[in-house]
């Protein structure tokens, strides 16, 4: 399709609905407008989370001089809550999933557009409640993002409101999953059979099921915390006959599958980007598609590896360790297939590929260190140390975070109809990559040497590694800033994007950039 200015005039941005101004966005049921709003929201929360993270790192090179002990606990807790519940769990599905899922399957919208709008409002309401908890009653939560009981039942901080906010966010997530699964079953274009679905769609499908099956467990767990705090019900309080390990079970029954809510669609993005920039079909399409389902189903049953030192039974520890090793198999399949796709490809070294390749590298480190802590014996030494923090950030930021940056650079021309300059994007990527590894690899060594996580202070022998890590955090922030400024500048001053700047083969590249309101004038027939 030709690149012309008329594309923008006919795009969904220009669609006149019943409302004007801000309301035309907030009241919209168009999946693309909802996706754009979600994207703006998650990037805002990400930016705040980064600033809190920088503050934590700064405090750690001068303990007691920048943040007090209590403030330190609150800052790392709010950093975690924002990053997990408001950025990375909703992340890919709500922003890119909403925007691209219907287009990629040849539909005009999701199956339940109004429900989609409700999820956006629920997300805003949940975010508002979490924000309110910071400034009311006992102040910001200081429990960490895990809200571990029985401390969360007894803490003076405003846990009840924060937990209620997360509860509401959970409903947004469940309904998004329901909407996506139904959309994929019911709204595929004629000829779009299951094994013609783009791999990003496969991962959204698997993720949708995990969202529906796992999130209600978090909801009930959070209700138990509220009941414990407000009415003194002792589900998790040993002094009242409760069991704190039950809390860990329930929490991680959600929160480990939640890792796959974050990472699976991220893998879908990589599965889209690698073949386009290698100029080849994906190696082993079916294996990659099935591995998404494999990760979703096996990954549901590994939560106990977060609890090896909790006092859980030996039988359960052995079972959970074994299943943890199993889940590495489908993840390994994806990594091998991406690399095999690159092999003998005609590589186009554009910015999205840089981010995608770093995903593979960083996620592999995250995954392999996951096997170390999934083994029972090393886990006893490494549990609760900086090793876990490093592993977690390699998977979450190195994995899901870099995938979001990949998606931003890959789909930016389609979403906004503008091209960005490549050079600053690559410079930003380079700075980010260096900063990331300085920041988090130091934590692997710190953890291996015994530095416990969440501690406000430490013996002097850990100082040098903490310093390297903090310097890494500044470099990382500069990289992010370069990337962000480049994209924002392109948003206003970028050149007009053609409909298919990368030579992509999926349906979103067959329509104008940005897409028209109805996506397709006629529903495409897939041959």
């Amino acid at each position, binding site marked *: 399709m030709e690149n012309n200015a008329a594309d923008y005039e006919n795009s969904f941005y220009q669609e006149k609905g019943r409302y004007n101004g801000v309301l035309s966005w907030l009241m919209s049921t168009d999946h693309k407008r909802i996706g754009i709003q979600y994207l703006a929201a998650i990037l805002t929360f990400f930016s705040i989370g980064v600033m809190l993270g920088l503050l934590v790192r700064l405090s750690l090179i001068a303990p007691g001089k920048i943040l007090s002990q209590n403030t330190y606990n609150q800052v790392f807790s709010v950093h975690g809550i924002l990053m997990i519940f408001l950025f990375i769990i909703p992340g890919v599905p709500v922003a890119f999933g909403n925007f691209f899922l219907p287009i990629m399957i040849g539909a005009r919208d999701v199956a339940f557009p109004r429900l989609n709008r409700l999820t956006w409002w629920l997300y805003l309401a949940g975010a508002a409640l979490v924000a309110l908890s910071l400034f009311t009653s006992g102040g910001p939560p200081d429990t960490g993002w895990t809200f571990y009981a029985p401390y969360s039942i007894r803490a003076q901080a405003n846990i009840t409101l924060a937990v209620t906010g997360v509860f509401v966010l959970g409903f947004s997530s469940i309904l998004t999953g329901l909407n996506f699964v139904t959309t994929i*079953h*019911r*709204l*595929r274009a004629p000829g*779009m059979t299951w094994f013609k679905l783009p791999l990003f769609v496969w991962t959204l499908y698997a993720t949708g099921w995990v969202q529906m*099956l796992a999130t209600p*467990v978090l909801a009930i767990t959070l209700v138990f915390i509220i009941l414990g705090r407000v009415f003194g019900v002792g589900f998790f309080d040993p002094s009242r006959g409760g069991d704190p*390990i039950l809390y860990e*079970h329930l929490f991680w*029954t959600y929160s480990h599958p939640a890792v796959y809510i974050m990472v699976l669609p991220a893998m879908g993005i990589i599965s889209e980007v690698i073949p386009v920039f290698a100029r080849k079909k994906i190696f082993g399409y079916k294996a990659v598609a099935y591995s998404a389902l494999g990760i979703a*189903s096996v990954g*549901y*049953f590994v939560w*106990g590896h977060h609890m090896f030192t909790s*006092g*859980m*039974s*030996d*039988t*359960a520890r052995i*079972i*959970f360790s074994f299943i943890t090793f199993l889940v590495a198999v489908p993840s390994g399949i994806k990594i091998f297939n991406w690399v095999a796709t690159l092999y003998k490809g005609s590589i186009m070294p554009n910015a999205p590929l840089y981010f995608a390749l770093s995903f593979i590298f960083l996620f592999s480190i995250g995954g392999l260190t996951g096997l170390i802590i999934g083994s029972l014996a090393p886990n006893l030494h490494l549990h609760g140390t900086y090793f876990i923090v490093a592993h977690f950030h390699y998977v979450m930021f190195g994995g899901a975070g870099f995938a979001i940056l990949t998606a931003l650079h890959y789909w930016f021309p389609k979403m906004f109809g503008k091209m960005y300059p490549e050079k600053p994007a690559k410079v930003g990527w380079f700075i980010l990559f260096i900063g990331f590894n300085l920041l988090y690899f130091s934590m692997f060594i710190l953890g291996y040497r015994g530095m416990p996580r969440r501690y406000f202070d430490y013996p002097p022998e850990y100082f040098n590694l903490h310093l390297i890590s903090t310097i890494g955090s500044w470099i990382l922030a500069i990289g992010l800033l370069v990337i962000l400024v480049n994209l924002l500048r392109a948003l206003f001053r970028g050149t007009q994007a053609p409909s298919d700047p990368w030579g992509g083969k999926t349906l979103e590249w067959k329509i104008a950039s940005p897409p028209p309101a109805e996506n397709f004038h006629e529903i495409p027939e897939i041959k």
Partner: protein
Amino acid sequence: MQGETEKSDHIVPYGTYVNVWIALMLLLAATIAVAKVEFSKYSVFANLLIASLKAGLVLFFFMHLKYEKWVLKAMLFMVIATLTAVIALFFADVMFR
């Protein structure tokens, strides 16, 4: 895509509903019986089994799952299998702690 779970109306005879109701009452009696008999830790399994049977009857007959296509049945089976596995893993801890 069409035809995965197309709806159609089914007129179920009253007799079926009465039979299901009787079965539910019998299962209720079984629940009470289990509470009276000392099964120790196995009473949990007995209660879960009875509850599953009750839920199955309600789903199949009252909620018309019986008349749905296989896709919907398979989805529900997957959800129940997941829940069963989760409960089993909980008990792998609680029973051997």
